[in-house]
């Protein structure tokens, strides 16, 4: 899906847990998430921590869309 969107000219950021899979399939902008059942907020942590993590990683994803890249890039996250 990522590749079809990109072919149509949309910059796409893939937010996923299994980064090697995304790289193999061919996503160009990748932001890691923390797990499969809860990519953007671990229910074992407090709502504040979940929000902090989600807000941060979505922010990284938005910045990724505005970052020129020339090859497949995995963007770094802080939390």
């Amino acid at each position, binding site marked *: *899906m*990522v*590749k*079809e*969107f*990109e*072919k*149509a*000219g*949309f*910059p*796409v*950021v*893939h*937010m*996923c*847990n*299994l980064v*090697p*899979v*995304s790289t*193999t*399939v*061919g996503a*160009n*902008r990748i932001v890691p*998430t*923390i*797990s*499969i*059942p*809860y*990519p*953007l*907020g*671990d*229910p074992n942590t407090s709502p504040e921590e*979940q*929000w902090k993590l*989600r*807000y941060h990683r*979505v*922010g990284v*994803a*938005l*910045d990724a*869309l*505005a*970052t*020129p*890249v*020339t*090859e*497949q890039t995995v963007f770094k996250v802080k939390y």
Partner: protein
Amino acid sequence: MKKVICYLNQFFGGVGGEDKADIEPYIVEGVVGPSMAINGALKDAEVTHTIVCGDNFMGSNTEEAVSRIMEMLKGKEFDFFVAGPAFRAGRYGVACGTICKAVQEKLGVPAVTSMNEENPGVEMFKGDVVIFKGGDGAAKMRKDVPKMIGYVNKVLAGEQTLGADAEGYFPRGIRHEIYLEDKRENTAAYRGVQMLLKKIRGEEYKTELVIPKKETVPVADAIKDLGSSVIALVTTGGIVPIANPDRIQSASATRWGRYDISDMDRLDAGKFKTIHAGFDPAAANADPNVIVPVDAMRAYEREGKIGRLHPYFYSTVGTGTTEAEASRMAIEMIPYLKEDGVNGVIVGST
């Protein structure tokens, strides 16, 4: 008697379904589930141990999982390592490939697995590991196990194996030297010229050196002015309105939906849920924003980091879904994105 150790996920290891996908690896003596069938198909060899590990644990803590399993295998004598079959189960396939590769590299023991061609594990590991071409689901166990174990038996008996196509595994891109009868028609020069003549005549010819290619797409240009951009959210995590109005399938999806979020600050539990059959839905049902982060997008919209969030999110289920279906669904979504002047897309996967 030669010795074989098997690897299974939590489901085939009999621990449980998605709610047990976080379990940490452990090793038992003897056979469990499919390793029983593997044991039955082995000649002059037996399964001495079976390792079981949750797919999510392996997926999210790969290094930790691999190092713990290596620790378990340390000091155990075994001649072959067999993982799976994983069929079309993506995380399981990636886990099988990961552990087979580690066993080969770190312990020097040959390893083999089996999965369906649609499994992402094939593309990731076929160059490193012998991966047999498997069926799409567990109903094919009876076919997939003998195919894979037939090869193991040959290798353990020291018999000559015939290469990827003849044995039924995905080509690894490795060329073996074989001796042909010493005559002119067998020389490389003769074979090369014959191929060239066929090519010139427009006839079919088969190259002896296949160059594998990875299909990539050119990187789309970055958004120049994020502050005035329109961003859309797409998920393969199966988040839908609670009644699942588009009847999107829980696995091997062919349908997708677009859902209006224009008057929502977040996705509320009870109004949205996940119908994805490939993971424990508890966390996503309790807070669907962990998969489709509408709340975070609204915050960035208020702050002016983006112009606005596209008024719909798009959803399908990514487990067992073929690449062909995924392409088609994305192509079907594109006109809606264009119509609203979307500048960039966040695709979230589970």
